[in-house]
């Protein structure tokens, strides 16, 4: 069976979600593998959200926020960036490929960039194959 990755995308309300919306209203086509979770700010994304997405079966997690300097809450995206870099270090230790977790800045006008990002990320994850996490969590004795 062809592998159809499951991707969870956390999009900040003010820029990235609007950007994704623009991609939609402009009828741009992009891969349908992404499940979008809208949050107010990328700084709201707690590491728990990301880890939970993986343990619940996401093959990739995409985080999008406003460009540096543009966060509606001033510093949220910097906080997000620092969490992201630490998370990458951690998931690598746990045996999850760092490519499975991606952070990109998408502004409200970047519908096209969003569509391209989703396509290229889906491609990366398709090449990596399914994340082993679900099987591993089952192993007990």
């Amino acid at each position: 069976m062809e592998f159809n990755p499951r991707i969870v995308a956390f999009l900040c309300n003010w820029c990235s979600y609007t950007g994704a919306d623009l991609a939609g209203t402009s009828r741009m086509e992009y891969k349908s593998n992404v499940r979008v979770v809208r949050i107010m700010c990328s700084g709201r994304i707690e590491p728990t959200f990301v880890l939970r997405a993986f343990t619940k079966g996401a093959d990739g997690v995409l985080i999008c926020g406003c460009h540096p300097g543009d966060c509606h809450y001033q510093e949220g995206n910097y906080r997000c960036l620092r969490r992201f870099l630490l998370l990458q270090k951690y998931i690598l230790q746990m045996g999850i490929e760092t490519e499975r977790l991606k952070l990109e800045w998408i502004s409200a006008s970047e519908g096209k960039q969003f569509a391209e990002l989703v396509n290229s990320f889906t491609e990366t994850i398709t090449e990596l194959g399914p994340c082993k996490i679900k099987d591993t969590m089952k192993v007990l004795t």
Partner: protein
Amino acid sequence: MEGSKPKLKLAVYWAAACGGCCVSVLDVHEKLFDVVAAADLVFWPIAFDIKYRDVEEMPDQNIDVTLFNGAVRNSENEHMAKLLRKKSKILVAYGSCSHLGGIPGLANFSTKEELFRRVYSESESTVNPDNVNPLPEFEVKEGVLSLPDFYNDVRSLTQVVEVDYFIPGCPPQTERLLEVFTAIVSGAELPPKGSVIGAGTKTQCDDCIRKKTENKRIKKFYRPWEIQDDGVSCFMEQGVICMGPATREGCGYRCIKGNAPCRGCYGPPTGVIDPGAKMMSSIASIIDEKEPEEISRVLEDVVDPAGLFYRFSLPVSLIRRKLI
């Protein structure tokens, strides 16, 4: 204790543990006399010779309270967890290993094969030219000798059987145990099943004895031995990683009073699912850098985030073992 009341039946058992939890029970010192005045110790392998068979022969629910310490890492641990569950009215996960997987739980960073290879062939002190490895069963002329089956995964007690209460700590603070014991003996109403007892609900930081300011701006993290601790300010504000923000209060600030940062043995506070995730948040908020390269440079000092943040809790955390 009224003379008419029957004595409580108490058991203490160790599974995959270091023995420290049993010692913490012994640390009641002369209060042990109060304990034995109110309770009969019916099973306690570190202290006296009662066989598993004797426990197997007890009627179900015969023991009032069992303090089960240690994680479940092999078939013997699992057998005893199930047996003691059946024989006890109240089963308490006592100490970090039983509560969270604890230090033995760090084995979930490896597989059984990796552990065996390291221990039976690669370690510097191993001399094993014939490559002898332990087998669960071995035939000799007298019959078959057997060893417990060593599992791939270390589990906490609640991942194996239903647990009534959790007393955290590596080891739990003896004073807390006495409080719990006194409450049980006095017949006081017990907290709801599944509660963490003998500890608080908030984080260590909430009432920490060290001074905190609002100004948390870190450009470099240090190992405790790399800086001169001022003995007064919050460790984190000095750039020393302290697990306080992700750890339940209740130990009496044992390590912090000894001028060492908290390592997280009491586990996450109420409402926190994953201590490491909480730590990642805390650390990310105090780093005073905005450029990816600069942030990464600061994070180089966090050498082993997984081992540091999940030192006591790997088996119960969201990603409970290294992927295989």
